[in-house]
């Protein structure tokens, strides 16, 4: 009876140390909302809310460990099926997973109670995401699509909300965010699917979408060009279309990994649709908001698959004997296993810190949108906080997505290496983890795009301001204080590099963005680990190992940044060589 929450010491640690009482207070409007529809399961105070979160996560841990994980191998081997009529039949295991998630009331995780949801904050939802992903990385793509319901809640009319949200919460429907097109991937401003109004004023959608996760779902949140004369993102609006005869799946992609997640090519044939919110705000407001949540979700997915891979490797390193000893006694293996574990904890620390800030920001936005305070000072305070959190989040969210996804590929890869030949075979799940992990640095914005977003935060003062708050913390313990001093020095190095880069311009910033962002993340995570280190001896060692390992890396990266090197741009043709012929 494995429980993926109760057996995960680090998740339990974070649950206890993330100061969830503050998150619960903003999520529940200081517990003033426990009347009204479904008030019978509203929490009475912070302690009650945290108890609910713990119980919910324990249910997710049970479902993940006992229901989802046992089906993952078969789902990976068999996949979903495209039917001749343009519909998709989910693998019976995927369908069973969705059914059990619905039965456990887990498909309206973050929706307000008035629509039948659990009203859980992002930090709890992301922990759930991590556990689902550990059980079956591909199922996270369906479980993790709850941001669609959130987007409807945040921006659609009351009528649309009342019609669709309870169906999401009951698990009757799943959704898809239908954005990508053959010529509009990373660059969503180029979306061309046509939205037009017929003689009755009914909106209709016409065109093709590609690489749509769960495009066979019932509710298709579709980005389309409603203003044919405006060529950029301001000509795009967001629409809700329902699955039906006027939208069909033309192709089901065959992918390297996440086989349980149906990736569809969709053809819209004058499909009737409803406008979400206002015209022209589709990409610039709604999808941007949706994407931020989705990125944190991918960080959670990355943590889950890394955790799964690490566990197999740790177990194998312990039981596998060569040269008369467990292979974990071999120094190279010992270091691999240690680094994997610390890398996961590092990404976890950053991701859940980000989630906390997301919760503060999102709840503040919700109050400003639906419940604007009459008091002027209060309003100004909220607006000011909102700006701070927004700036911070637009750095931390891409950082988390980038850092966790790159981490999980590395960890899955190392896990496979620990298992050696066995890891390369289908006998162990590690090759599946390595395949499943691979997508995480690609979708919801590639690593390269996350770096572009994050480096602007790093260079615009958000990094400095945030590190200031960390540096204010004093450690009575001498060793921890010494480690902190090292981080203070590292930060100065990063600041020097930022100044250098800013003087050189945007192209240079993007060329060296990864090194700057890596260094900034190492400083942030170092501080987060220091905070954890006050709790127990093991975490002290983790902090020590992480900080001491990263200082030389930061120095190296900063040196390269400050070298002024831009040969990859200046001599691209010479260095990259001629373009090979396509054959």
């Amino acid at each position: 009876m494995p429980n993926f929450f109760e057996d995960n010491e680090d998740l339990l640690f974070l649950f206890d140390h993330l100061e969830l009482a503050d998150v619960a207070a903003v999520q529940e409007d200081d517990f003033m909302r426990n009347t009204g529809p479904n008030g019978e399961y509203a929490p009475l105070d912070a302690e009650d809310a945290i108890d609910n979160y713990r119980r919910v996560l324990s249910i997710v841990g049970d479902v993940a460990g006992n229901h989802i994980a046992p089906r993952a191998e078969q789902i990976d081997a068999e996949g979903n099926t495209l039917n001749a009529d343009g519909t998709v039949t989910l693998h019976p295991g995927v369908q069973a997973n969705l059914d059990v998630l619905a039965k456990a009331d887990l498909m309206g995780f973050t929706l307000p109670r008035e629509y039948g949801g659990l009203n859980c904050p992002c930090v709890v939802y992301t922990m759930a995401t991590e556990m689902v992903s550990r059980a079956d990385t591909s199922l996270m793509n369906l479980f993790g699509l709850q941001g669609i319901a959130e987007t409807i809640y945040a921006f659609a009319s009351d009528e649309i909300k009342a019609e669709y949200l309870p169906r999401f919460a009951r698990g009757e429907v799943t959704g898809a965010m239908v954005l990508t097109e053959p010529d509009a991937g990373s660059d969503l401003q180029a979306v061309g699917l046509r939205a037009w109004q017929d003689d009755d004023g009914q909106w209709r959608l016409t065109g093709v979408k590609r690489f749509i996760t769960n495009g066979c779902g019932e509710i298709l949140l579709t980005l389309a060009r409603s203003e044919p004369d405006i060529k950029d993102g301001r000509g795009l609006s967001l629409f809700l279309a329902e699955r039906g005869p006027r939208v069909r799946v033309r192709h089901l992609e065959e992918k390297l990994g996440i086989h349980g997640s149906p990736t569809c090519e969709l053809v819209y044939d004058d499909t009737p649709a409803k406008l979400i919110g206002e015209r022209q705000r589709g990409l610039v407001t709604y999808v941007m908001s949706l994407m931020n949540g989705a990125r944190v979700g991918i960080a959670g997915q990355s943590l889950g698959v890394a955790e799964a891979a690490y566990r197999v490797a740790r177990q194998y390193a312990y039981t596998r004997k060569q040269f008369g000893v467990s292979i974990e006694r071999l120094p190279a293996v010992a270091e691999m296993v240690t680094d994997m574990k610390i890398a996961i904890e590092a990404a976890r620390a950053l991701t859940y810190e980000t989630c906390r800030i997301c919760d503060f920001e999102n709840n503040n936005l919700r109050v400003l949108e639906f419940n604007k305070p009459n008091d002027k000072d209060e309003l100004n305070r909220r607006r000011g906080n909102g700006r701070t959190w927004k700036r911070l989040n637009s750095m931390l969210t891409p950082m988390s997505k980038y850092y966790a996804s790159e981490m999980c590929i590395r960890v899955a890869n190392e896990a496979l290496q620990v298992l050696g030949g066995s890891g390369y075979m289908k006998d162990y799940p590690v090759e599946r983890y390595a395949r499943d992990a691979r997508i995480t640095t690609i979708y919801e914005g590639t690593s390269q795009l996350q770096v572009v977003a994050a480096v602007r935060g790093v260079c615009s003062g958000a990094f400095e301001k945030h590190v200031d708050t960390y540096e204010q913390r004093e450690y009575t313990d001498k060793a921890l204080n010494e480690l902190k001093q090292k981080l203070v020095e590292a930060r100065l190095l990063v600041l020097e590099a930022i100044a250098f880069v800013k003087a050189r311009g945007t192209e240079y910033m993007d060329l060296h963005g990864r090194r700057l962002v890596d260094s900034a993340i190492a400083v942030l995570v170092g501080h987060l680990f220091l905070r954890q280190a006050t709790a127990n001896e093991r975490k002290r060692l983790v902090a020590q190992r992480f900080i001491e390992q990263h200082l030389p890396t930061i120095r190296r990266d900063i040196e390269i940044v400050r070298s002024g090197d831009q040969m990859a741009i200046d001599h691209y043709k010479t260095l990259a060589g001629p373009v090979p012929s396509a054959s």
Partner: protein
Amino acid sequence: MSYDSIVCVKQVPDTANVTGDAMKDDGTVNRAALPAIFNPEDLNALEAALAVREQHGGTVTAITMGPLGACEVLRACLYRGADRAVLLTDRRAAGSDTLATSYILSQAIKKIGKYDFVFCGRQAIDGDTAQVGPQMAEKLGIAQVTYFERFVDLSGRTARIRRNVGNGWEVLEVRTPMLITVLDTANEARPAAARRVMRYKRARAADEVIKDVATAMPDASDAEKEAEQARRLEALKINALLLEKWDLDDIDADLMWCGVSGSPTKVHRIQSIVLTKEGYTEIPPTEDGVKQLVHELIVDHTLG
């Protein structure tokens, strides 16, 4: 037609995770050393009942016999969808063997009155007797189907049921009311439902309220405590969160048949076996090696 089901559930020590002090010196189970859990196959019994309700309508009532701590399994039933939960608790029932237990439970079922199905797990993991279900059916004078796998068909008062017969299966046609014991392979028992957990985690039996108040207000006078108890009980009633509690008098039980006096089972001898062998043996990956292994397993009575 809708069906009313009763599910008998039990809180048991988690014998799957046995630690060093799991047995007392006299060879009986040291319940204090093991975490108390929901007997696994009772979850399959509950699932079977909930599935009948989902397909045909009706009600599901959970009942457990045990000390006050057994309220935890009743709440677990409510989390999964049970409509009603009853705790059967009485000091005079202590020491009951399977005969006395089945008598007491059958009296409780008679008190509930109208029902179509009684579902039980095949057996509990503490005693592994698989006797209580069949004995209850005898005492209630109803048909019994043990080792239930699934309903082949259910309409009106007739059920066609597939049951496991060890090396295969058979289909029986049975008329309601009946008692069914359910195998862990019969279904995938559902997890707790989050919304119901948030709600029913507050469900309490009256005796639990007394304990809760004593813990919450250790220095209060008796009168203050009583007032607080009354306030809490009233709130539980209003919110439909009061777990029913019955004792032997409530179910008209004949005390002769309950507890130690109603339990003819005598423990003849208990052996405490400590495994000393190494964890594994190496078998050469050859035809002869496999033959030797099969032979050893047969001699060992592991096979055949």
